[in-house]
């Protein structure tokens, strides 16, 4: 799957995008575990970040698969 980082998460991850391979479908908790293994600097942002799957905010039942584009959405500040 393609992971997108925005705002300060881009600095924390030291990249704007990353590729992550997953087998089958995983939930948000499992996805976080995978991300933190590779990007431990994201740990402190976990509580404030929402996932978006293919351009839509994920909900508790959302599952993520290898073909998804997953964005990590920190608190927004537009306007």
């Amino acid at each position: 799957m393609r992971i997108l980082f925005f705002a300060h998460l881009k600095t924390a991850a030291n990249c704007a995008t990353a590729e992550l391979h997953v087998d089958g479908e995983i939930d948000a908790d499992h996805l976080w575990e995978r991300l933190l293994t590779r990007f431990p600097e994201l740990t402190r942002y976990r509580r404030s970040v929402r996932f978006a799957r293919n351009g839509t905010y994920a909900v508790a039942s959302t599952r993520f698969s290898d073909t998804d584009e997953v964005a990590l959405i920190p608190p927004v500040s537009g306007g």
Partner: protein
Amino acid sequence: MIVEITIEPEYVETHQPLPRTITNQAGAVVTFAGVVRGEEAGLPIGGLVYEAYQPMAQQTMRAIVEDIGQRHACLFVRVIHRIGIVPVGYNAVYIVAAAAHRAEALAMIAAFMDRLKQDVPIWKVRALDTTGQPLPPLP
């Protein structure tokens, strides 16, 4: 309801005409400009740098306008949000809402701005000092 959503890295002329199809029906045209102020966290600044997850931001803004439009019937809504460098005094966001009567147009803009600040993936990522040099990233 006609909805126009634009995310734009360059200055946008905001005095654009309304669609001809609504001009006979619109009794109220309300505009709102969200302008970059000259300070951030108590320090003088020269501008802000905005970033967006553009496809999602565009889709989310449209969905928000259409949802609010179910309760506050408008004829036309135009939203322009800047990204990139926006100098102090320039619009970061500009909204036009046209409706038969003012209450719907005013309500549209108030509700939209509340939801923009909750759900639309756009960020102020950095402030520039008064000489245009980048300041540390915003939290």
